[in-house]
């Protein structure tokens, strides 16, 4: 008998689309957290497929640290327009001006952690009951325990011990007023799955994922883009290198890798043979062994 079998990308796609449709069916004010990085691009691409030919039933929300790669913001605006989505931006700067958070100082200053407050405030302001994110379980050990539907209390906090069991494909989105869910449709994707899918579907991504020359500096063995937002240490200096980014986040804490990968095939080959994880060069995760977990508990992405 002929056997019906899906390859891994189609199975992952089917699962993610199921999750996205469940969100549209179960929640009143869902948003899609859009950063302009490859994972949120894939999440929004899948959302388009899930509801075609109707528009995506989620507003896009970007929490802007103000320290972005200009290429990402340009890409974000084009992409949102292409998809016909509505974009809401909330600025960390506004949270600072309102005195909700205070800017870090010193050479390690980053606005990455401050995003949490801006995000949780936006969720409250916009009465969001489901915030879809592109996080994957393979990224980091505390993410490995995330559910597809991850419950947050009224303070936006995550309690890893008190999560709802998720069985079969039955997702329970019931919640009390003020509580919300973080939804992770890409939970089961790995970095290489994402790139293989981008290639298979011919999805556009910001050019800084590909090899290019840039002014950089080296800190604790990692390469960072030089920009107005960083302050160099005594022994640090700017040099020019051929690099690319494996993840896109805040400019001050997203590390680059030296790479000559100029197209998707090169990237897939590079990721497949890489001996380092993509988060290995993010300062924000290196602060302590449990730093992502601590931030997640507080309401981070």
């Amino acid at each position, binding site marked *: 008998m002929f056997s019906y079998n899906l390859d891994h990308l189609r199975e992952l796609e089917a699962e993610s689309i*199921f999750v996205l449709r469940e969100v549209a069916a179960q929640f009143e004010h869902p948003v899609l957290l859009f950063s302009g990085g490859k994972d949120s691009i894939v999440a929004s691409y899948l959302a388009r497929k899930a509801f075609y030919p109707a528009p995506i039933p989620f507003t896009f929300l970007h929490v802007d640290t103000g320290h972005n790669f200009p290429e990402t913001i340009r890409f974000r605006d084009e992409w949102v327009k292409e998809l016909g989505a509505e974009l809401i931006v909330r600025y960390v700067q506004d949270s600072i001006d309102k005195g909700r958070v205070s800017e870090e100082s010193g050479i390690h200053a980053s606005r990455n952690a401050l995003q949490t407050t801006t995000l949780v405030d936006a969720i409250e302001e916009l009465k969001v009951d489901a915030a879809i994110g592109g996080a994957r379980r393979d990224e980091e050990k505390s993410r490995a325990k995330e559910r597809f539907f991850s419950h947050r209390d009224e303070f936006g906090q995550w309690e890893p011990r008190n999560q709802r069991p998720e069985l079969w494909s039955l997702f329970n989105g019931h919640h009390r007023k003020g509580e919300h869910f973080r939804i992770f449709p890409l939970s089961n994707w790995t970095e290489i799955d994402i790139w293989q899918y981008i290639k298979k579907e011919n999805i556009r991504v910001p050019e800084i994922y590909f090899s290019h020359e840039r002014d950089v500096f080296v800190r604790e063995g990692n390469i960072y883009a030089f920009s107005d937002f960083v302050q160099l240490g005594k022994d640090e200096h700017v040099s020019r290198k051929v690099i690319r980014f494996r993840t896109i986040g805040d400019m001050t804490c997203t590390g680059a890798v030296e790479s000559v990968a100029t197209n998707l095939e090169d990237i897939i080959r590079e990721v497949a043979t890489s001996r380092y994880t993509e988060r290995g060069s993010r300062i924000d995760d290196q602060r302590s062994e449990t730093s992502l977990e601590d931030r997640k508990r507080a309401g981070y992405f």
Partner: protein
Amino acid sequence: MMHSSDIDILRFTTCGSVDDGKSTLIGRMLFDTKSIMEDQLQAVKSASARRGMSGLDLSLITDGLKAEREQGITIDVAYRYFSTNNRKFIISDAPGHIQYTRNMVTGASSSNLALILVDARKGVVEQTCRHAFIASLLRIPHLVLCINKMDLVDYNQDIYQSIVDDFRNFSSRLEVQDVQYIPISALNGDNVVHRSENMPWYQGTTLMYHLEHVHISSDLNQIDCRFPVQYVIRPRSEKFPDYRGYAGRISGGVFRAGDPVMVLPSGFTSRIKSIGLAEKELEEAFAPMSVTMTLEDDIDISRGDMIVRENNVPQSGQDIELMICWFNKRALQSDSRYLLQHTTHEVRCQVKEVRYKMDITTLRRIQQDPALGMNDIGRIRIRTTQPLYYDSYRRNRYTGSVIFIDEQTQETVGAGMII
């Protein structure tokens, strides 16, 4: 690590008692398939050193959240990923504690295969029986019993054989179709990814070979056509003024454009006009694909309805018998009321009778104690406010499963499998 994009996915769950070597085994699989990155390895090395170890403690690779690091145990289901040239693997790593039946059930619900560990020195213990019972209850199609720590019993064949015999004896009372027995040493790597030279008497495959080759394409029901409608797509746009698409994930069978279909509960019939995803039209679609379907006729269809073939309809009714795993501190009792989620359909139900509770170590039925507490498994009868359209869980895991939701706390309190 793999490059190929033409591979399939095997989902498996790992279970064992504390200290049987589950974390070490997962660490070993990841390490020997070169799935551990340099920066993760460094972190494990420094954590091993802090614990006063000279070498690499592979069990620390799968070490999860802070709370469990403090206690030194896994407390919740964690997922791990790796791939080889043949397959992508998703491991749901369920902890071994008795009180965490819930986690194993969760991990088992989406698995193709369960990997059960026993310590060769201890043999088949109570926990082994619990795990095997849950695997069979959740109908995981494939089971692997890993007899671990063979290095501590001199790689002795008789010890292996007597454990195999014990397990066979127990599992003959369960419904498991496919069981493999593999003697391993997770610590040294024997028969995990690489063939052991210490056990020439073992003729079978390594664990990894088995995981890479076990036949899973018939794990899903490809016979009974079931399409629970998840969402109705109505653009009402200039370009698509009258479009009505039914979005969902196929739970069973194969649907083709042109097929005559029936919609439940209304009973209206029509034909499939198109089936596909976004701009891409398909000739046929099968489980577990997510698709959008349009029909020839305009019928009123909403979320929770089910599209099936006229000549093969699911069972229907309001009185349902189920096996249930209970996850909540507040016991399930006769007369309790809950919300019930079944496919994309939600109804209320009342528990009419708790028929028995299962002693999952002895497989005895306990009839005199009619409440099901946290982590209990039993058989119940419920009545729903509206009819459900369902298959027995044995026939279809997706149209035969339900979750119970407490209306007050909104929590998921139980998982049911329709008999």
